[in-house]
Structure formats: C-alpha cells, structure tokens
C-alpha cells in the first residue's frame, strides 16, 4: 500500500457506555492518519429521568483534549434521537422532523496516529441501565511514516528538525 493514497472507510462503534459515559471510542492506529467525514449517532435513552447532552471529543496521544463539539439539542428519558456530525452540516438548535439533529464539524479534521475520537454523554446519562448509542464513523485513511509517539511540539520550538520525518 502506498503512502499517498486516501482510502475511504467506515467503522461501527461499540453501543454500550463505559463508566465514564463514553461510547464510540475510535482510535487512529499507528502509521495512519484519518480525515473525519461524518459521525452518525442513533441515541436511545432509557426511562431514567435525566437530560442527556452528548459531545464529540478529539484527544491526542497524551489524552489532552484537542477539540470538543456539542450539538444544539439535548434529549430526555425514553426518547430516540439521531445525530449527524459532518463538515458542512447545518447547526440545528431544534430537532428536525422531531428526531434529527445535525451539527457541523471542521472541514479539515485530520487525526494523526494515536489520537482518538469519542462521543461522550456529557450530563446525567444512564450508564448503569440501558442508554444505547449506535455510531457509524466515515473517514478517509492514509498511511503515514510516523508512529505517532513523537514528542509534541511546543510553540517556542522550531517545527522543522532533521528528525521530523512524518
């Protein structure tokens, strides 16, 4: 496989929440970079009373947060809602047709090796009972030479060095 070809792929995420209210944990493997094209979420809330707010989070190799994106709509007990995160999507603050929420993400959302993208149930979700989030990630993948374990650059450091082979 050559280094310069983009390959278009899809992945289905795990449907259960972990103890941190995290689902859809997608990891960029070593020697790959991903361009995020869309993330689809089908959320089904249990009957536990609470307002659910989901959030897309990107973290780097050190688990530092690189970005967070929140949809403009929450949902409550026993409701089913679908969420589309995609470049160019409108930013809806009310569900369309009562169940669909679209949220824009940056067009150039490139994730280097070792970074991850997750959907987090931000507030008061039901992680002990039966909230369900089905997720589908669409992305373009390219092979790169970097393993993703290089030390992150700081802002007062010259970016180009002889060891910078990525």
């Amino acid at each position, binding site marked *: 496989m050559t280094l310069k070809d983009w390959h278009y792929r899809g992945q289905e995420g795990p449907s259960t929440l972990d103890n941190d209210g995290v689902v859809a944990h997608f990891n960029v493997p070593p020697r790959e970079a991903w361009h995020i094209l869309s993330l689809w979420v089908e959320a089904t809330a249990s009957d536990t009373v609470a307002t659910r*707010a989901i959030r897309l989070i990107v973290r780097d190799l050190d688990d530092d947060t690189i*970005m967070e994106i929140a949809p403009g709509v929450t949902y409550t007990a026993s409701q089913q809602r679908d969420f589309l995160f995609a470049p160019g999507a409108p930013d809806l603050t009310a569900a369309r047709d009562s169940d669909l929420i679209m949220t824009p*993400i940056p067009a*150039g959302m490139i994730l*280097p090796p070792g970074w991850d993208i997750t959907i987090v149930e931000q507030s008061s979700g039901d992680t002990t009972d039966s909230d369900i989030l089905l997720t589908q990630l669409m992305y373009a993948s390219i092979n790169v030479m970097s393993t993703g374990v290089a030390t992150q650059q700081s*802002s007062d450091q010259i*970016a180009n060095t002889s060891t910078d082979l990525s």
Partner: protein
Amino acid sequence: MPTGQWHYRSQEGPEVFNADTVTALFNVPPREVWQLLSLWAEYSTTATAGARALRLVIRDLADDVVLEASAGVTVPISTDMDFLFAPGAPDLAAARDSDLVMISLPTGLLIQPGWDINIEVGNADTVDDSDATSDIDSMVTQLVYASMNVMSSGNEAAQSSDQPANTDSDLS
C-alpha cells in the same frame, strides 16, 4: 524534506500571559506555510472583576494585524469555559451546555513564514496578587494545523496591490 506536501501537526501553547495579555502565541517558522485547522482553548478565570473577551489574532512579519476573529461569548469571573476556533464551526452567541463556545474561521486560512497566531484576552486577570481568590487567569491551547515546506524565508517585503506579483526574485 521536499516542498509541496502537507504534514499534519499539532502544538500546545504556553499557558501564561505576556505583558500584552497575549497567550497561545504560535509562530510560523521560516520556510514553512501553515493552514490553520483548529485552535482549542480551555480558559479559567479568577474572581477578579471583568468579563474576559477572547479574540484570535493573526499578524504578519511586520506585526500588522491581518485577521481577527472574536468569540461570541465572554467569560465571567470564576468560570471555566472552552473555545473552539475552526473553519466550518458554528458561530455561537451563547455557550452550549453552558461551557462550550464555537467560532467559525475562514476555510483557506494559510499563514506565511514568520507570521504568528495568538489569542488575546480583553480584561484578563494577569496580575498575580498571591491571595486565595485572585491569582491569574489561565488558558490551555491546542493548535492543529497542516504544514508545508516552502522556499521563502518569509523576510521579503510585503507586496502592495499596485505591484506585479510575479518577478524574477519571487521564488516562493
């Protein structure tokens, strides 16, 4: 390294303010061009009075302002708030989930050698008065960008609009 290829990178910015209440100062080094993909800022304010107003500012080699993008929400005292500046992000006038503010940027934000990107904060608390309630504001920043090597060192004089762009010495 050959020119003409984009390399995807990230940098964490400094957390402390300088005398101009500037933090997150990112400098494009000589012989590189950056395309800004996103800038994430986690801002925490002290109890010192003042609504903090964040603004992304890009300056050229002569320190002239080339672009400013202002967040639609200010940060009150004693509050943690997160900001995402990115092309394609919505332009929010109220924090979402009470703590997340997104601001849209131009899509083709190409930044030349020697230019810099920073976040300036109006009404920031930058004075360390060393008591329990008023230390200094803090901001953690993460820049994601694509970098391309170029032949220009970035120290030529800027072209004016009445000057032809293509000359024998224009090798960048």
